[in-house]
């Protein structure tokens, strides 16, 4: 899963260079108690390279209309003005209250200094926070978790709210990828059945010898992964769905279809309860689950969730259409999440990113191609919101990257560093970002 050698490489480099000289002290120094109450960070990744200029539009720029003849937003035509240069897409209207409350900070011309226009490299390198480095195998959030781990650390420090972890959460620190649509009761029974195969401390040998130490050779990490699955998934389902209901008489005899129908009915009933209007999309459900775990006080620090489908080469849609409806779903999900968290949102940071922005000019198919600089968003307590961050030099060709894309004037790693510091008081040790010393940004 992870490349131990690479991990040691960066953590050793970090230790050697850090003011606190040994790994032990590095751990001790960073594993500080959170300052005021538990803080958390929710990281949302828009996969495919979201068109930053169609999320935030420089509607007062002289060249805007010319480069965006159809994907064009204007006051009264799809745009919510933010300041004298920028507006946001009307689909983000649910986030307007957070903007007004100065809890929403867009950062434009943010991204990676690396020139790649490959989705896959750009995503990997952003999630490893190591542009151009093909040896790094640990995600940046996982590195934070590893360095700051304590002996009695919660199993719920981090969750990937989807079937497979985003790369940012992959690595040495074990993190649960929450399986979606797992049958609640069946799932519980399944975990019980396989506990002996994968779980700890199963005591099967006669004479009570522990099976530990007699584990099968587990070089692929299958057994470890199974153990983690059993340990954390049980607790997760309890938090999110409540304790297992005792099976009703005759329940076993119901047909699978009937059981499914009843379960759906139950879910719908539960979903109808909260006053917060999460969208009924997958993203909405996932944000609502993150909120539940956060509010349960299980020590959740980091949650990651992906949102796919932003590679709008064709027919992105101007005021309405494919991309706007995705944007709206995103905004509704975040807004409902913030509403449900209430005061807890003050110690929570939501970070939204995408691997790159897209070409400044439309491509003539109602879409845009892979570009360079993009946008990031920070929401939550303590952000310097209500203002657009990031230097922007205009859309004239001479100010664009390679004459065609937004330049990168804010390195995404500096945003990561600021978010880690704000959320966890975490000072990135040297070489936490290989070869990059983060600049201090005034984002919080």
């Amino acid at each position: 899963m992870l490349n131990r050698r690479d991990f040691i490489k960066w953590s050793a480099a970090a230790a050697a260079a850090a003011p606190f000289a040994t790994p032990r002290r590095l751990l001790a120094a960073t594993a500080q108690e959170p300052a005021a109450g538990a803080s958390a960070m929710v990281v949302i990744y828009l996969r495919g390279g979201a068109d930053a200029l169609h999320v935030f539009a420089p509607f007062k720029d002289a060249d805007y209309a010319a480069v965006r003849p159809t994907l064009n937003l204007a006051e009264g035509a799809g745009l919510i003005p933010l300041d004298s240069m920028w507006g946001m897409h009307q689909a983000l209207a649910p986030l307007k209250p957070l903007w007004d409350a100065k809890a929403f900070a867009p950062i434009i011309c943010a991204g990676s200094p690396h020139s790649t226009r490959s989705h896959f490299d750009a995503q990997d390198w952003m999630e490893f926070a190591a542009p151009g480095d093909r040896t790094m195998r640990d995600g940046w959030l996982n590195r934070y978790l590893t360095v700051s781990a304590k002996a009695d650390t919660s199993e719920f420090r981090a969750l990937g709210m989807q079937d497979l972890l985003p790369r940012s959460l992959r690595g040495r620190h074990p993190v649960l990828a929450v399986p979606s649509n797992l049958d609640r009761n069946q799932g519980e029974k399944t975990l019980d059945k396989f506990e002996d195969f994968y779980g700890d401390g199963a005591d099967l040998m006669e004479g009570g010898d522990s099976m530990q130490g007699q584990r099968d050779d587990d070089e692929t990490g299958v057994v470890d992964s199974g153990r983690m699955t059993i340990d954390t998934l049980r607790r997760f389902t309890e938090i999110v769905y409540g304790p297992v209901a005792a099976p009703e008489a005759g329940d076993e005899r119901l047909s699978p279809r009937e059981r499914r129908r009843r379960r759906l009915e139950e879910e719908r009933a539960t979903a109808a309860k909260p006053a917060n209007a999460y969208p009924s999309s997958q993203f909405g459900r996932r944000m609502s689950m993150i909120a539940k775990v956060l509010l349960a006080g299980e020590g959740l620090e980091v949650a990651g969730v992906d949102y796919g489908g932003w590679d709008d080469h064709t027919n992105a849609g101007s005021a309405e259409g494919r991309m706007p409806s995705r944007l709206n779903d995103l905004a509704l999900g975040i807004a409902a999440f913030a509403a449900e968290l209430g005061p807890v949102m003050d110690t929570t940071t939501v970070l939204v990113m995408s691997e790159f922005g897209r070409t400044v000019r439309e491509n003539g198919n109602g879409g845009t191609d892979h570009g360079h600089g993009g946008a990031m968003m920070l929401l939550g307590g303590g952000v310097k919101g209500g203002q657009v961050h990031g230097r922007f030099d205009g859309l004239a060709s001479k100010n664009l990257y390679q004459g065609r894309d937004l330049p990168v004037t804010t390195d995404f790693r500096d945003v990561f560093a600021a978010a880690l510091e704000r959320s966890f008081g975490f000072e990135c040790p040297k070489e936490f970002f290989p070869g990059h010393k983060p600049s201090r940004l005034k984002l919080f």
Partner: protein
Amino acid sequence: MLSALLALATALPVAQEMNQDAPLSERERAVHLLNRLGFGPAPGEIERVMTMGATAWLDEQLAPAPAQDPRLLAALEKFETLGMSPAGVTQWVYQAYIGKGFNYDSLSQEQQRAVRDRRREPGRELVQSVLFRAALSDRRVEEVMCDFWRNHLNVSFTKGDSIEVQVNDYERMVVQRHALGNFSEMLQASARHPAMLNYLDNSLSRRPPSKQELAEIERNAKRSTGSRERAAEAVEIAAQRGLNENYARELLELHTFGVDNGYDQDDVITLAEALTGWTYEGGNRASQEFAFRPDMHVVGDKRLFGRRFIEDDEGGPGQGEAIIAYLAGHKHTARFVALKLTRYLVADVPPQKLVDEIAKVYQKTDGDVPAMVRAIVNSDEFWKREHFQAKFKTPNEFVISAVRAIGGEISDVRSLQGALIAMNQPPYNCDDPTGWYDTAESWLDPGVLAKRWQFALQLADGKVDGVSIPTTFWQCVPEDAPAETWQHHLTRVILPGGAGERTRAVLASVTSDYLQKHKVADLRELGPQLAGLLLGAPEFQKQ
């Protein structure tokens, strides 16, 4: 009876605690071969391979058109759209509504819903046929290689844009036709297939319109709308039309050279220009066939990789074809294909020596797939113990091998399709042009095993609709022997690569618990319990 038991006892699968250099036994070799080149052994297959020998088995598999399992042929016959061309599928989807002036928008809502539903059908049929083949075909190696190429030259139903009428033909004419053929030909076939042209947008890529063309557009718009503003708008929109780099980039990055390997952004643009005009006749009444449109093409010689590719003087796609042939023959492509193939068939991090060797075979044979497969199987690296039972199965490999392990009788694969959707790997639904990954790093996150366990229990319990364990499977278990013998027997059949100590201990305790609760052991009761646990055991997750 006693002697039979003794024979069984000596043949019990035991965790291999020998050193890493010990060569694989004959039985282990058969297991390994079927694991890596056959989606896992079905009952009886290990013995067959042992009798034939690995070389003869591979010869048989690579020989053209051997007999095919009649159960598979019968299953595939039910699908209406499988053998159809894109035009045929279009006809099939819209047949009830096609007439003069047919227009989707003019249909009633109900009719539109019916069309939409029918549009999904070819995709369902295709995915189901892929699963049927993977589980039942006698052509094991062909199926495995189809899976490999399907992901290497990925197209996906998630694209939308009418791709659903094109992918069935892609599977047949690109993947199946060339899976055991020649990579260069497969690449050319994929490049001009409507499914690929659509999926990666090359069908839209064109040279920007000339001044004359813009003037004409303006005139026409003014005439038809009578509005100067509208005409200006139309010109503005038309002026934006131009190159779409999507396919050119992925052709280099994912299909041939590998990312960042000997090309830059200028090369991507030049390649995209060379491929302008490669499109297809789209629309509900069109032929849906490849078309070269000279009016969309950026005319002129192209310089790429220090070479000059001259313009096709007959106004055809010759320039693009020459470039694709050049890419296919390049040493970067040889190395990239060799890396991916050895990663898929041998190890997540394949031995460099083997990668180099296979790249050489690629270059010597112009990308001959059987030659590369043979070279891998004939290498010492393939048979090293460190690779035996060491590769984490992808969800697809897990599901197919589980069905095969129990000799599953399949009447309907929709629930297998559902299982793969739940495990995030349904065929032809990978939105990313990378195709599905094949390494443990991509699939083994804490949490993923929960769904495999659930599937394992349901499958063994006969609760996966359309898939049943045949009575012949249980007949191979000596029913009059003690329950412990059933347990050993099933372990040997489902985990032919060997079971670890812990797994055996867990099974023994399940068996003894069962015996304590029941006076008479019933194979039909205990058997499925044990089989479900075996399919979910750590050993079954690896191949």
